[in-house]
């Protein structure tokens, strides 16, 4: 009897001990290790016309946060369908605000838009994702990801059940989007994707995904509309959507060394604030979102290796000069040409 008591007591004690030990060890391993080597972002605004000012404000707010957290412009593809900043109807030229207090100009001073105006189309978007761009496309308009890239994809605009409207004239269906992402996976063009979409009935867009390593969130479920936040009476239109407004509030408190997790991000807009239910799809994502740091997708990791072994060059090399430099080229005399076809005037002069 007594032995049983001693035995059970020691059992409980060892159990408590191991629990405390594991708790002590758990903190450094709190974040599950990610093996990505670079970060990309694809930010798309699909609406045209002045009254859709808020969609441009949405996408530029995310652009600004992502740039602030470290992703360079060369790894961000920004697609904006219409010009709001220099639009003649904009009473504050070259600015876009996301708040009626007009404190932050999200358009900023160093924005680089890769696809703008009529270039933002379903075909160009799918070509960008799958890599099948026309041969003359410059590098800044290509998605040059590799197997170690974590990509943040953000779409905003007007949508419906199973489609997203581009520029009020064409749609991309959820099946096409899922197929495009699958082709990216086949070519190993991503490590993990975080997909955010802020439109009406947004969750229908991610329901057809079938490729691994995708974590998706949407501002509303099927059958619900995403609503805008408030009007700026000086500009005269709604200037930000609810979901993106609360996302921004959250991101403004994130700095490059932040310890916040993805699950905090996924819970950023409760139904009381957003008036629509935020949808999440996590079955394709291998890691647990509560253990994934938010900087895995919003920040930028660039591994740095310190060099400690320079080569000690004894003989200074001299490259064999290539034959194309022809030193015996005779300098030709050049002249300025007349700027007006006077020869035609004189011959035809009456």
């Amino acid at each position, binding site marked *: 009897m007594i032995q049983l008591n001693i035995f059970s007591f020691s059992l409980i004690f060892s159990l408590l001990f191991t629990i405390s030990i594991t708790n002590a060890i758990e903190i450094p391993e709190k974040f599950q290790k990610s093996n990505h080597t670079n970060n990309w972002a694809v930010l798309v605004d699909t609406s045209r016309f002045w009254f859709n000012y808020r969609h441009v404000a949405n996408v530029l707010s995310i652009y600004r946060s992502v740039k602030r957290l470290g992703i360079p412009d060369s790894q961000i593809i920004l697609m904006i369908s219409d010009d709001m900043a220099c639009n003649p109807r904009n009473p504050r030229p070259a600015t876009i605000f996301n708040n009626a207090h007009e404190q932050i100009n999200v358009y900023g001073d160093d924005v680089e838009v890769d696809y703008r105006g009529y270039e933002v189309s379903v075909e160009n978007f*799918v070509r960008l994702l799958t890599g099948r761009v026309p041969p003359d496309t410059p590098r800044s308009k290509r998605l040059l990801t590799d197997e170690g890239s974590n990509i943040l994809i953000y779409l905003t605009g007007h949508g419906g059940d199973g489609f997203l409207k581009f520029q009020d004239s064409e749609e991309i269906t959820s099946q096409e989007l899922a197929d495009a992402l699958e082709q990216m996976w086949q070519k190993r063009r991503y490590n993990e994707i975080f997909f955010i979409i802020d439109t009406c009935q947004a969750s229908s867009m991610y329901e057809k995904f079938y490729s691994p390593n995708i974590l998706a969130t949407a501002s509303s479920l099927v059958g619900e509309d995403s609503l805008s936040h408030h009007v700026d009476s000086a500009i005269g239109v709604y200037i930000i959507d609810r979901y993106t407004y609360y996302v921004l509030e959250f991101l403004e408190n994130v700095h490059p060394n932040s310890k916040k997790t993805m699950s905090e991000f996924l819970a950023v807009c409760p139904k009381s604030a957003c008036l629509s239910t935020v949808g999440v799809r996590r079955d394709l994502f291998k890691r647990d979102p509560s253990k994934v740091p938010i900087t895995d997708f919003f920040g930028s990791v660039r591994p740095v*290796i310190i060099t400690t072994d320079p080569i000690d*060059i004894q003989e200074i090399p001299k490259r064999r000069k290539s034959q194309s430099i022809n030193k015996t080229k005779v300098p030709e005399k050049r002249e300025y040409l007349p700027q007006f076809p006077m020869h035609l005037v004189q011959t035809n002069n009456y």
Partner: protein
Amino acid sequence: MWASASFVGVLIIIGVPLWWKTTEVYRVALPYDKINAFDPMSHFISSELTVLANDDKTAQDIAKQIEKAFEQSDVIKLKIKKQVLSKELQHILDSVADEQEALEEVAATFNTNIHNTFYVVQRKPLFKDVWVGTERVAFFRDVKAAPTLVEALVHWIYEPSVLNGARSETADPARQIRFPSGPGFHVVLSVVHPKPQLMKVDFNARDAVEDYIGSFVDEISDLHNFTLKSQWLHLLEFNFEAKEVTDSPGDRHFAVRQDRLPLLLTRLEERAATHVSERPTLNLALYVVPCDTAPLVLYDADNKRVSSPVQAFMSPKWGGVVLGNPTQQECQEKLYKPNVNLIMGTFLSQLRKLLGITDKRAVGGARLEALRRAAPRRWERDALLRLRALEQLASAQASLASLAELLGEISNIVINDEVGASINLAVDSIQRAGQLLERGDLLEAHKYAQQGFLAAETAFMEPSLLALLYFPDDQKYAIYIPLFLPIMFPVVLSLKNLILWFRGKPVHKEKID
């Protein structure tokens, strides 16, 4: 009757096949069976190794030990030849003082310039067990040096683990550092000068890049095509947030934490203007540290001071940065003349790693002669050729496999002649490259592997292969069915009567009004 027969004839017998033919998708026949038979992990390279020893028994022992070590790896198969050194050569090797001279003697007798060969030669007066230099020759002392020799061969010369990583699907650490395979690169040397009004820099970037980097890339021109460029980025400032640390009275340095360095790369990228080029760019940046924060010293992730003759770091798949610290005297004179040899030597060491030449870890008892010139070692070139050939072969096969799956799944994508030609070329090149690798003909194998890789990439990234551009089958039927079904209805119904009529039975159908 004849009328309904003619309706049936036109619509069903002529119309349906005509519609089927005209809505057929043009697809060139593809070698699906060959593509499905691809197995990247089955490729191997055979390489020749000659053992030259003083007597037969040593040669046998050494050869046997090497054979045993390499029989596990299926990625590289060694053809070991044994030979006994001639008496005079033995005598010369034993008497010559310097390894370099010994190398020359060996090179005089045996041809060490053939790709994919290696010579293991016995030489008694060695300081350590094994000595490896820049040529395709390794010296060993005697039989007892066999384990060290084997380790040197595995970790330095052949590196089967890295080769295995090259042909596998997942990226191993070596693959994460080096640039992916490609036909060419741009190498840009940027001199970053934050305060030109306070200091003058005497550095000829053009000559530095042409001479030093040029000599290096000329040696590996078989692998990639390089374009060398240089530029100066003035007034580009970056705040290192360096803390002043006083070592001794009058001597101080500024400490930079490692997590600050990626932000420097972001800042540099804004102005390096790399996106005008079509090929990937290797950035080498020399950052001239302004006098008020000089000298800058890097502290690694454990917050320990980095002790190295030069402060430099690199980032995989991007390039490298060297911090140029002017001395106190140069600050007073306002003229900074960087040590070109040291800086370019650092860049070369970074460039080597970024292009795939791995770091050689130390092997106890073996001496790897330090590299004292810009050009890479000859056996490093061979290793690169093997690595890139396998990588490109594996990548081409993966691309073709996924492309074949895609084209098989979506049956309405047009496969035009160019895509068919690219795929056929890729398949042929892959097969030839595989055969050549097994034979050991490295240069030709790499050429075909690169050709196959480029053809596979061209085929996969072909702009016309966008599923979006073509009508899916169900939409095709959705357009034609409402148009033709009402028409076909009476025609099909009259078929029954038609058949009866052909058989000769009188047909009478009455409609009474």
